[in-house]
């Protein structure tokens, strides 16, 4: 945890973020900061606004107000395709594997946005299954393999901040364990990660900090070392 990137550097600062889908007001003033090299989770119940927060950062929701700074740059007026070029890699909840593309085409689809991304060889070393099935149709893979593919795809681009939405959802424990190893490796490489996660037992040992989201607002911020002290608060929010 101590090595590498500058922990003071604000890679992402979201202030007073409101987001709307048509008439429905989803986010009610999200405030959060993510430093370089940090792994931060967004915890909360379904419908609390965690996915929408990630989508709002990607400029993928209808209307937004407030401020989203990436690397110190205001991005509220950026077109969606400019966000990725700031070094942001987004892995959607539905994984977004394209059925008309084979595995390798899926993998090489996102353009490289920064130098320092992983090469195809490195990716295939990290995910040997993808290599074996590189000419299969993307959606013919198992759920776990599709999730690996969705992750691997954004590692190639050189993105240094990953927004990951429910990557363990519906996957077998052995796959979840593998994903945990991957995240640890990425963190050790100095990548900044924002993780929307339902599986608290998966997220807890990996994360530096947790934000609890409820009704479209951040209601609690918990550092990793405060977890045991604030466990009861957290449980009451998550309803476990």
């Amino acid at each position, binding site marked *: 945890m101590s090595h590498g990137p500058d922990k003071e550097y604000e890679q992402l600062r979201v202030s007073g973020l409101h987001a709307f889908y048509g008439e429905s007001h989803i986010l009610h003033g999200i405030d959060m900061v993510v430093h370089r090299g940090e792994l931060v989770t967004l915890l909360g119940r379904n419908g609390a606004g965690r996915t929408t927060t990630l989508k709002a950062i*990607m400029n*993928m929701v209808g209307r937004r107000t407030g401020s989203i700074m990436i690397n110190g740059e205001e991005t509220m007026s950026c*077109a*969606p*395709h*400019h*966000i*990725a*070029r700031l070094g942001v890699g*987004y892995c*959607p909840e539905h994984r*977004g594997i*394209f*059925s*008309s*593309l084979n595995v390798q*085409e899926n993998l*090489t*689809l*996102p*353009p490289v*946005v920064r130098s320092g991304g992983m090469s195809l060889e490195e990716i295939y070393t990290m995910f040997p299954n993808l290599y074996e099935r590189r000419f299969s149709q993307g959606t013919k893979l198992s759920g776990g393999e599709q999730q690996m593919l969705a992750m691997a795809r*954004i590692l190639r*681009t050189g993105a240094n901040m990953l927004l990951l939405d429910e990557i363990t959802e519906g996957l077998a424990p052995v796959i979840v364990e593998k994903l945990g190893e991957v995240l640890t490796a990425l963190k050790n490489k100095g990548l900044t990660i924002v993780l929307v996660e339902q599986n608290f037992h998966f997220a807890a040992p990996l994360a530096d900090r947790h934000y609890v989201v409820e009704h479209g607002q951040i209601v609690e911020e918990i550092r990793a070392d405060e977890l045991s002290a604030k466990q009861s608060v957290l449980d009451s929010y998550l309803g476990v």
Partner: protein
Amino acid sequence: MSMIFGVPLAVLWGQLLIGIINGAFYALLSLGLAVIFGLLKIINFAHGAMYMLGAMCTVLLFDYLGINYWVALFLAPVLVGLVGVVIEYFLLRRIAGQDHIYSLLLTFGVALMLQGVLTNFFGVSGLRYSMPDTFQGGMNLGFMFLPYYRAWVIVVALLVCFGTWFMIEKTKLGSYLRAGTEDAQLMQGFGINVPLLVSLTYGFGVMLAAFAGVLAAPIYSVTPVMGSHILIVVFAVVVIGGMGSIGGAIITGVLMGVVEGLTKTFYPPASSAVIFLVMVVVLLIRPTGLFGKEA
């Protein structure tokens, strides 16, 4: 003379040839429609008008600027393609994401306006465009006479169709198109300039139509309404092939031209209805079309 089912063989071959030629046009046009529908999810009713513009452009470039067929073969599609990009940028983009009916009405309106304005200037009796000298005459294949120009149309149309299929199915640019067809928002999230891709795709689809128009200029009557006649058939072809299927559009196009040609030989009264008959049958048996993905 040898006969088959009471039809002279030479007549059969002749109709088959016409069928393949018409099929080549259907293929080029339905291919453009399929490409546009795939990414933009709009049914481009202006497609016939773009085909007409391609042919008109060829005639006018020659009449007013003395530009010959070979130059027009490239220039006309580029010019009409630019018209397409303008239509996409200033009109279609504003109603993106709305119900299909809006883009359908809008493109239909654009087609009517283009037809109306050009009819006002040129009438509907047809402009003359003489066959390029290179293609005068033809060759005797023994069983039939093959005019050079018809042979050229078939070869070049199929080459362009194959090239387009290859570009979409086998190249990097094509993978953007295919992926954009599935989830354009995520593509944009990866940093791909989807609005630009959409403009270029519409322009490219329109270029294919205009290219068909240039090919048609020396053999069909060039009039401002030539597009509206062929478009209805082409829509039937796209429906038979399956909306959005690239290979399906090409194969079905040629196939339907042949079916039409054969019908003209054996039972002429049904020739203009046969494609629609096929469409009805296909829709009853396979609602997603011959090559469409099962929903």
